C-alpha cells in the first residue's frame, strides 16, 4: 500500500488539482440543493477550504492546513504565493485602464487610510489589553494590517516572538474575516463597481482575503481589488516600523 502514497506524494500538484476540482463540484452541488444558488458555489468552496484547513491543523498540529497531510502536500504549491499571484496577474487581461486612472486618487487615499487606520485600531486594542511597550504595541498594530506586515515590523522594532505570533494571528484572522465577510457585506457598502472594488482593496489590504472575498462576490471585480491591495503590504512594511513606530514611541 505504501506505493500508493508514494505515487500521490510524487504527483502532489496533480493530486491538488483533482481534490480542488472535487471540492468545487461538491460546493456547486451544495449551493444548488441547499441554498438554491443564493450563496455562490465559489463562496462555499472557499469557506469549506478554511474549515478543512482548521481540522487538518487540529489533526496534524502543523501550520499549513491540509498541506500538512502527506498525500495532500501538493496544496502547498497550488495554494502558494506563486500560483496565487500568477493567476491574479492573468485576471488583468481585459481590465479597463481608464477606470484605473480615474480611480487612482481614491485608490491611493484608501491605501493610506487603510494602513494607518488598521494600525491604530490594532494599537488601541493592544494598549487596552495591557501592552505597555512601544515595540509590542507597534507590532500588534502592524499585524492588524496584514500577516506579513506584522512579523516584518516586529523584527524591525525588536518585539518578542510571542508578540510576533499574535501579530501573525491577527493578520490571519483579518484575511479570513475578509474572505467570509466580503460577499455578505458587499450589498451594504455598495461593492458592485470596479471603482468600489479598487477602494475596497486599498482599505482592506489583505491580498488573499480581498481576492478570495471578491471572487465569491463577483469575479469581474477581482483584478481591480487585487490591483490596489497588492500595494498595501509594501506600504504597511514601509510605514509601521518607521513613522508609525516613532509616533507610538512618543507616548510609550
Amino acid at each position, binding site marked *: 500500500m505504501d506505493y500508493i502514497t508514494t505515487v500521490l506524494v510524487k504527483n502532489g500538484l496533480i493530486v491538488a488539482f483533482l481534490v480542488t476540482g472535487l471540492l468545487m463540484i461538491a460546493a456547486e452541488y451544495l449551493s444548488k440543493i441547499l441554498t438554491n444558488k443564493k450563496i455562490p458555489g465559489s463562496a462555499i468552496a472557499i469557506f469549506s477550504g478554511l474549515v478543512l484547513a482548521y481540522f487538518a491543523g487540529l489533526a496534524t498540529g502543523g501550520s499549513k492546513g491540509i498541506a500538512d497531510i502527506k498525500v495532500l502536500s501538493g496544496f502547498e504549491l497550488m495554494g502558494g504565493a506563486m500560483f496565487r499571484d500568477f493567476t491574479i496577474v*492573468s485576471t488583468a487581461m481585459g481590465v479597463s485602464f481608464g477606470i484605473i486612472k480615474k480611480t487612482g486618487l481614491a485608490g491611493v487615499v484608501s491605501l493610506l487610510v487603510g494602513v494607518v487606520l488598521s494600525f491604530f485600531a490594532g494599537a488601541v486594542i493592544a494598549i487596552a489589553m495591557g501592552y505597555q511597550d512601544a515595540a509590542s504595541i507597534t507590532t500588534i498594530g502592524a499585524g492588524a494590517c496584514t500577516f506579513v506586515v506584522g512579523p516584518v515590523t516586529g523584527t524591525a522594532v525588536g518585539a518578542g516572538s510571542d508578540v510576533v505570533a499574535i501579530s501573525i494571528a491577527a493578520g490571519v484572522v483579518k484575511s479570513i474575516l475578509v474572505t467570509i465577510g466580503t460577499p455578505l457585506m458587499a450589498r451594504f457598502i455598495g461593492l458592485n463597481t470596479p471603482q468600489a472594488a479598487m477602494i475596497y482593496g486599498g482599505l482592506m489590504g489583505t491580498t488573499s482575503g480581498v481576492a478570495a472575498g471578491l471572487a465569491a462576490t463577483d469575479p469581474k471585480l477581482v483584478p481591480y481589488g487585487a490591483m490596489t491591495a497588492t500595494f498595501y503590504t509594501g506600504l504597511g512594511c514601509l510605514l509601521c516600523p518607521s513613522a508609525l513606530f516613532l509616533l507610538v514611541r512618543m507616548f510609550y
Partner: protein
Amino acid sequence: MLIRGVALLAACYITGQLIGETLGRLLQINANVGGVGFAMLLLILSQNWLEQRGRFHLEMQEGVVFWSKMYLPVIVAMSATQNAKLALSSGLVALLAGIVPVVVCLATMPLISKLNPKSE
C-alpha cells in the same frame, strides 16, 4: 501560439516581481512593494500595444485566459492551506486586532468613494 500568451503573462509576472522587490530594496524594507500590481499594469499595457499592431491573436489570449480561470481553484486551494487553527486559537488580542480594524475601515468606505468623479 498558446505558449506565446503564457510567455507574455510570465514575462509580465517576473518583471513585476522584480520591480516590486527592487522597490522594496530601494525603500530599505524587506518586502515586495506592489509586484503584482506592476505586473498587472504591464499586462494591460502590453496587450494594448500588441493589439494596436495587430499582433495579438485570439490563441495568445487563450493562454492567459486559462490562468485567469484557474484563479478561483487556486484561491480555494489557498484557503485550504491557511493556518485557520492559529487564527481561532490564539486568544482575544489576535481576534480583536483582526476584526476591529476591518470594521473601522469599512466604515470609511462611503467617505472615500465620494472622492471618485461621478461615473456617467
